[in-house]
Structures are given as structure tokens and as C-alpha cells.
């Protein structure tokens, strides 16, 4: 007799009720301890001095300006980095050229460098004692300790986010579809918008969300180049630190809760967009990056 046509699935690693439950339990407990409880604390502390105090902190001109500055930074840095990320991923995965691997390494550098190093490096490039500082001052152009410096530092730190999401996916998808489109007479832009973009949009969205969250939350690099001028160059993370150092714990947490809210809104927006798209084109790529070469959307 051949092997019985059992309905049992082939045994997999970790597929027992005990292991399954303890694994799920473990993840839930660690998740609650590491992620959920600090989040809760932020909101509890933010309101610890009462709703009126919370409102006073949030509506304070300095806080409002910090929120505005943080959002403005994201509005500049995220689109630029998105364009850069798409271009870089496209160049690396669709073309062969000398220095391709080097480019890949260069893109990843900001991942491995501490943001404070990035900030200090900007000081040495644009600072008065630095490379371009004196020339910039002579031309009365302000980069450091002003919005351009903050945007540049944020962009440096978040440069890899979009590209890193796209490259593995685009590598897996190969070039067949683009080549087919081109051979059928589609222009480069047409190929990009009708073929490539639909294939990568979930990974792209995920990259943009990560990039945005990081731009808004960036502390180290921005702290070096911002100049910490209240109501001018203090971003929300810097404002949180300022309030905390000033023995305004409730105020610091109120500002922190705003920052957290911004992050949560970003993630909810991502989930909503995903849901809208998932109905039409199957599961989102980021949940399970398409493994097969040239798989259709």
C-alpha cells in the first residue's frame, strides 16, 4: 500500500499546538512590553497635568511652529528621497554599468552611519570653519542652523529607505516586462507609469511611509545642524528634548504624543491605502514580496 492519503499537512517546524501558542504568546507579551506600554505611557503622562495643561503646551506658538517645521521638512525631504529612491533602484536593477555595486553600497551608507556623524559631517562641509562655509556666508546663503540644513540632514539619514524597499523587489521582478513594453513601442515614461510603477507601488508606499516616519522623528543629525532656535529651527523631536530638560515632563510628553500621533496617522494612511488597493490587485507586495521572476501583478 502506498502512503495513506492523509489529510495531515506535512509536518513543519514549530507546528505543534504548544509551540504555536507559546510563540504567539511570546510575541504578544514582548510586543506589549516593548512597544505598546511605552506608547501608552506617553499618552498617560501627556495628560497627567490635565487637559488644560496639555492644550496649553500644544497650542503654544513654539510647539505649533515645531509641528509646522517638522511637517515642512517631511514635505520637502520625502518627495526628494522618493524620486531619488526610484531613480536609484531603477538604475541599479534595470541597467548594467560599471560601479553598480559601489552605488548600492553608497546608498546604504546612511543606514550604517550614526546620524550624529552625519550632522557633524554637514558642519564640516557647510560650517564657517568648513569647506563651503566662508563662500556661502559671503553670498549670504544660510544652510546650517536654518531650514535647508535641517532638510539636508534629514534627507541624508533617510536616503536609503525608498531605494532599499524597491531594489530587492525590482531585482526579483526582472526586466522582462519593461523589455516587452519597450519592444511594443512604449516610451520610457509610458513603460515606467504603466508597467513598472504598478508593480512596485506597495513596496514604494512602504518605503515612503518609513522615510516619512524617520524624517519626522530624526533627532541626532538635526540636533547638530539646527541651532536649536526656539520658534525657528526647533523641530518637534528637539522641542521634546528641550521641554524635558527644562523640568516640564508633562509638556515634553504632550509634545511627544503629538509626534507619536503624526506617526500613527502615517501608518493608518498606509493601511487604508493598502486596503483600497488590495481589493483590486491581490495582496500587497510588502506583506510577501513577489518571489517569482517577472510575476504578474
Amino acid at each position, binding site marked *: 500500500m502506498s502512503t495513506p492519503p492523509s489529510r495531515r499537512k506535512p509536518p513543519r517546524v514549530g507546528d505543534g499546538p504548544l509551540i504555536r501558542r507559546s510563540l504567539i504568546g511570546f510575541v504578544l507579551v514582548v510586543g506589549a512590553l516593548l512597544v505598546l506600554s511605552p506608547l501608552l505611557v506617553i499618552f498617560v503622562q501627556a495628560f497627567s497635568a490635565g487637559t488644560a495643561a496639555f492644550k496649553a503646551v500644544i497650542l503654544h506658538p513654539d510647539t505649533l511652529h515645531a509641528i509646522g517645521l517638522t511637517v515642512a521638512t517631511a514635505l520637502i525631504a520625502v518627495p526628494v528621497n522618493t524620486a531619488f529612491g526610484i531613480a536609484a533602484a531603477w538604475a541599479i536593477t534595470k541597467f548594467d554599468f560599471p560601479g553598480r555595486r559601489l552605488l548600492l553600497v553608497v546608498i546604504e551608507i546612511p543606514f550604517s552611519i550614526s546620524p550624529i556623524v552625519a550632522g557633524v559631517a554637514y*558642519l564640516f562641509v557647510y*560650517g564657517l570653519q568648513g569647506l563651503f562655509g566662508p563662500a556661502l556666508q559671503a553670498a549670504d546663503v544660510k544652510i546650517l542652523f536654518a531650514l535647508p540644513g535641517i532638510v539636508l540632514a534629514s534627507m541624508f539619514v533617510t536616503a536609503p529607505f525608498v531605494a532599499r524597499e524597491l531594489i530587492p523587489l525590482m531585482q526579483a521582478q526582472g526586466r522582462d516586462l519593461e523589455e516587452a513594453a519597450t519592444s511594443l513601442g512604449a516610451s520610457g515614461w509610458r513603460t515606467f507609469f504603466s508597467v513598472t510603477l504598478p508593480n512596485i507601488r506597495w513596496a514604494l508606499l512602504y518605503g515612503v511611509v518609513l522615510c516619512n516616519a524617520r524624517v519626522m522623528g530624526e533627532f541626532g543629525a538635526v540636533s547638530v545642524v539646527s*541651532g*536649536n532656535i*526656539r*520658534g525657528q529651527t526647533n523641530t518637534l523631536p528637539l522641542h521634546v528634548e*528641550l521641554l*524635558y*530638560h527644562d523640568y*516640564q515632563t508633562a509638556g515634553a510628553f504632550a509634545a511627544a504624543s503629538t509626534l507619536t500621533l503624526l506617526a500613527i496617522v502615517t501608518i493608518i494612511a498606509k493601511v487604508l491605502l493598502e486596503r483600497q488597493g488590495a481589493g483590486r490587485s491581490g495582496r500587497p507586495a510588502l506583506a510577501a514580496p513577489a518571489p517569482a521572476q517577472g510575476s504578474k501583478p
Partner: protein
Amino acid sequence: MKRLILIGAAIAALLTAPASAEPATKILNASYDVARELFTQVNAAYVAQHPGVTIDQSHAGTSKQARAIVEGLEADVVTFNQVTDIAFLAKNGFVSEDWQNDFPNKSSPFHSLPSFLVRAGNPKNVKDWDDLVRDDVKVIFPNPKTSGNARYTYLAATAFAQEKFGGDADKVKAFIGKLFDNVPVFDTGGRAATTTFVEREIGDVLITFESETTGIRKEFGEDKFQSVTPSVSLLAEFPVAIVDKVADARDSRELAKAYLEFLYTPEGQTILAENGNRVNDKAVAEAFKDKFPAVRLVTVEDVFGGWDKIQAEHFASGGLLDQLYGER
């Protein structure tokens, strides 16, 4: 081509336009990291007296501020808590060499001192520096290698020990060594040390600037902690200066000078005293004398011969501090 040049000229004109002949009505004050509340009040009072004027504030550790100014942060005035950081600006040509003669009291409109904060009721009966080396007392202050605040603590304790042992270097060293042994954890900064003492409830005494103890008690409960002023401590200056390079470029010297002078007026001194700082104005000091118990203050110059000497003997790599800290 002609058009390009014209456009270029127009852009250049736009960029350079703000450099007008009018004296500035706006200055930036670069200050230390825990001075937000203080200068919010000072600036509001100054602007109320001088409508139309704007005072911007920047706060960070003063070494970082000094570095930023040298790299191009356009601060017209600095109000620091470390003399050495203004000396750094002077060395780089941003502040005049004799800046300490520009304003009264060596350009220090207010001062403070390393002082003690103990838990309510002072259960360990800590009164003076002697008590800190007792076996049953745990002391909290940050790492003197990384914190300016803790350097003052280290120097104040050293000054006390030098007096007590009549300058016997070995006994002074033993005293400071014992003090370090009584510190269960060295945090990197003053705020972290406060958290250790207040929220983690480690230690019996927190040593920090007297001006800080006011803020700590306000934030964490007046009834939970009490201040203890030692018999002798080290004068901690809070120096101010005009950043010449910036003030000249922006034509803001007049406003910068008037703003810093305001700190010496009775109104300015009152705000400073209300925020826990000791001031020199006789009438204001008299009005706040309940808040500031008598203490004998020694200066860095008298005891140690100035900051340069301190840097070389105590804080330089391999200096006295390294020897003591390394022995732990």
C-alpha cells in the same frame, strides 16, 4: 546670455538686500540647555519695556552652542553657564579678549553654586561636604568627565577638602576618592542624574546647581525634597557676552548691549532670583534672602588659579580627575 546675467544680478540683489542701514530690532540669544523657562520670562519683560524688539532663543549645552556659533550660528549674545565656553569663542575671535570687563561682576549677571538636595526630612542628616564621605551616605552627581555641572561639584568638594586638610594633597585626594566611592551611578548629564535621584530613587543626596534644585522641587514636589546649603561652596558664574562678529555684521550691538544690561537692572535681577539664581543687586538680594541661605563662596581664581590651570591640572587627560576616577 545678457538675460542670464541680469537674472543673476537680480537674485544676488535679493539675497543681499536685508543688509540695510537700519540697526537691528531682533537678536538671537544662545543660552544653556536648562534656561528655557528663565529666558522666556526675561525676554517677555524686556520686550514689554521695548516694544517692537524681538529676542529669539536657542538652547543647548553651551559647548555645543559655542561650537555652533563658530560654525555660523548667528547668535548676537550668549548667556552661558560655563566661562570656558565663552573663552572658546574669544579664542576663535568671535568675542573680544577682555569680554569679562564689558559688564559688571566679570560679565556674570547672576551666579549659583553646587548645592545639595535631600529627601524630605533629611533622613541621613546631611549638612555639609563632610557628610558625603560617610559610609552610610550615597551621593548622586553626573560624571565629571562629561558634565560641566559635575565639574563644579568636583571642584567645590576639592576646595572644601583643601581648606579642611590645610592643603595636604594626599588627604584631599583620599577625600575625593571616598566621595567618588559613594556615588553608585555616574550619569552623563545633570538631567539624567536628577532622574536617577528623583524617579529611580537612588541615593541620599543629589548635588547640582542651587538654581536647579528650585526647578526640581517645583516639578517633582516641594514636599518630597528639601534643599541643603553647605557651609562653603564654589561660585558658579553664569557669564554673558556680545558676539562681536555677529553683532557687527548685523548692526545689532546697541540692542545686544541693552538686552544684557537689562539683566543687571532690578527688574531683571528679580526675575533671575525668582528662578533660583543668586544675584548681586543689594535690594533684590535682600528681598530674596529667605530663599538663599548664607554660604561662603570661594572662586575658581582664588582656590585654583583660574580655569586654564584647572584644565591642565585636573581635567586634562591623565590629570587629577582621571587618576581619581580611574582608581574606582
